[in-house]
């Protein structure tokens, strides 16, 4: 997938004017957020349930290497094959090697964020193996070559007319229609044939249970179940942090993931593999490969603040509550992960230098932190990234800001922490600033501060500031014309 994170502002400005995207953004995220709230109410104490999920994810981050080893041991004991990939290239090579060895011409895929991250579809296509995304939204997004608009509805913003044209051209649909249900059935028929004869299925992993070596997937459509049932070979790809300690933890997280993702008590299907099929079973994979992908995470792990990003379980709850996402949709985030989740993950995976607008496009309102079932503190992460960026942190690939901006903020921080400097600065700046004032309000200013005034006004600096007035009044009212010090307790 093409990385377009440096075009954040450009794409956002375009998307904010896109009527189709706006129509959905007005209704969908809020509707899911409302459903989420209702279904969270099925817990006797929703806050406690959420806190429990957060505690599980905190343990996962703290005990990551031990849990991975335990998962590997138990999955191997069940007959799964565990492969470790340092980066995207290695992971893709592994899938290609498995596919080529088995002479497959195509693979079917369940929706998986990590395969978007590593660009698996492109790698397969370049080697002449056709990948078919089988989640309806993902299938549309893939065929249109677009990044996911929303983690749950990757193509929910695409107009039906466009879907119709696409399905006529690429999915063998015979009669044009703009009915979403008929379009869905056309995709069903087309992909059903792929599922029927598929030799290699690829899926992501929602949870990998250390205690039993089990991998778990949640879905509504049934496409992931097909990928795990029909072909002889199954490749399931997970990033390091998908591991959880026990089956009991996985059940609690299943509740939280479903509620936060789509506002369901549980997704229509949850499927759990403990190794490949056993002898005598007529379907299910003869071989189950589980690829554990690092792709920079073990380095992020060394940073005690950044590490907390690994708590994320990709529910997308933060997208549905984010006021910025609600205006611009998923495209401006420029890669696999959108919304606050993407603003937390993408800068770590691609580097702070290539994602500068992502962690700055935030008002720090904290709604995302409030709904996060994994306990990610998004606003604090963004502040941390901003400071690391300014400091040119090497590990996180911070990039210094333009020298004028850094110089200004150096002076600013000195001024706001020293009262004498601040007062002096005010007196000096007053005539310069107030030149732009009209009836006591400054609505624009040329030069470096122009941008600040795009959405804000500044009151002119008063002829006499509160501080100055206070001083004067003290002097005038003090008995015997002394300075005001006597009045001080």
């Amino acid at each position, binding site marked *: 997938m093409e990385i377009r994170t440096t075009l954040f502002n450009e794409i956002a400005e375009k998307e904010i004017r896109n009527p189709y995207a706006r129509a959905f953004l007005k209704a969908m995220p809020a509707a899911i957020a409302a459903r989420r709230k209702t279904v969270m109410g099925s817990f006797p104490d929703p806050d406690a349930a959420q806190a429990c999920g957060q505690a599980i994810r905190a343990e996962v981050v703290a005990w990551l290497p031990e849990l991975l080893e335990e998962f590997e041991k138990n999955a191997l004991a069940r007959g799964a094959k565990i492969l470790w990939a340092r980066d995207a290239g290695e992971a893709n090579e592994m899938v290609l090697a498995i596919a080529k060895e088995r002479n497959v011409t195509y693979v079917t895929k369940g929706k998986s964020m990590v395969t978007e991250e590593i660009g698996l579809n492109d790698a397969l296509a370049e080697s002449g193996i056709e990948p078919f995304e*089988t989640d309806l*939204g993902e299938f549309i997004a893939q065929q249109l070559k677009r990044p996911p608009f929303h983690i749950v509805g990757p193509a929910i913003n695409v107009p039906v007319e466009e879907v119709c044209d696409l399905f006529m051209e690429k999915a063998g649909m015979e009669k044009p229609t703009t009915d979403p249900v008929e379009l869905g059935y056309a995709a069903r028929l087309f992909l059903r044939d792929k599922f029927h004869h598929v030799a290699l299925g690829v899926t992501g992993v929602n949870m990998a249970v250390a205690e039993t070596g089990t991998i778990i997937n949640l879905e509504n459509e049934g496409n992931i179940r097909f990928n795990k049932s029909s072909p002889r070979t199954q490749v399931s790809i997970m990033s390091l942090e998908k591991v959880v300690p026990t089956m009991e933890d996985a059940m609690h997280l299943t509740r939280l993931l479903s509620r936060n993702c789509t506002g369901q008590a549980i997704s*229509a299907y949850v499927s759990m593999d403990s190794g490949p099929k056993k002898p005598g079973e007529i379907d299910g994979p003869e071989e189950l490969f589980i690829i554990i992908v690092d792709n920079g995470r073990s380095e992020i792990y060394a940073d005690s603040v950044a590490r907390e990003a690994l708590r994320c379980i990709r529910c997308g709850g933060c997208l549905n509550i984010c006021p910025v996402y609600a205006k611009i949709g998923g495209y401006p985030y420029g890669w696999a992960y959108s919304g606050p989740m993407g603003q937390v993950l993408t800068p770590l995976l691609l580097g702070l230098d290539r994602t500068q607008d992502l962690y700055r496009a935030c008002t720090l309102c904290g709604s995302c932190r409030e709904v996060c079932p994994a306990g990610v503190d998004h606003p604090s992460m963004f502040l941390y990234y901003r400071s690391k960026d300014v400091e040119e942190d090497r590990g996180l690939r911070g990039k210094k800001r333009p020298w004028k901006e850094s110089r200004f903020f150096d002076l600013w921080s000195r001024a706001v922490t020293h009262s004498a400097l601040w007062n002096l600065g005010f007196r000096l700046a007053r005539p310069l600033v107030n030149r732009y004032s009209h009836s006591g309000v400054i609505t624009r200013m040329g030069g470096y501060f122009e941008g600040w005034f795009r959405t804000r006004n500044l009151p002119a600096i008063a002829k006499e500031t509160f501080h100055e007035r206070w001083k004067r009044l003290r002097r005038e009212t003090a008995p015997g014309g002394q300075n005001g010090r006597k009045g001080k307790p």
Partner: protein
Amino acid sequence: MSEEEITGRSAREDILGRLKEIPKTVVEPRPDMPPLRELSLDREQMITTFIEKLTLEEGIVYRVQDGREAIARLTEIVVGEGLQKVMVSTDDVVASLDLPAWGKEQGIAVLTPRDSGDRDSFRDAVFDEVEAGITGADYAVAESGTLVIVHDADQPRLISLAPIMHIALVSVERIVPTYERAIEELYGDTKNIPSHVTFITGPSMTADIKGKPFKGMHGPRRLMVILIG
């Protein structure tokens, strides 16, 4: 690619090595969570909750007294839907009803996975030939109206997935309040864990085009559950 590269053994050492270098942090103990409400339900309440929740997800639930009534209900469904050919699993619940014999009486073709010699012919049957899949279910979970199906040689994965209609039979003896109750029994003995377990809560669904929800995206469009007892 060498064997070493394919299995990623050296990558494994690198990754785990880096993760282990980091000093351990103290993790706060888990906060207390009040037990789920479903845990205090009696059996009849669990059954009511199960039916209520699954019905909300557009599953159709029939409650019958015993096996004989289950067969009668099945006949009604098959006649009502005009089904000609079905695939049935051979798990305990379904096997006890001897559906192949019932099929002969009713004049409908009842296939079992054993009629297919291999994966390919089995796939042909479930994808293209049959109009419904009939299976047992191992548990019915009250908390969300969820069926738990344990897959093995008698319970292939595709019967409850590929045909456009899925009819599941489950005994009320198998009702549990929460997922954990089923999971404890299935995963408690680590020597004998099933290769595949599926939770099913309603028909296959999507809302990926224009947010318009509908059933039967890839899996069954209709789910019927016959609750026995």
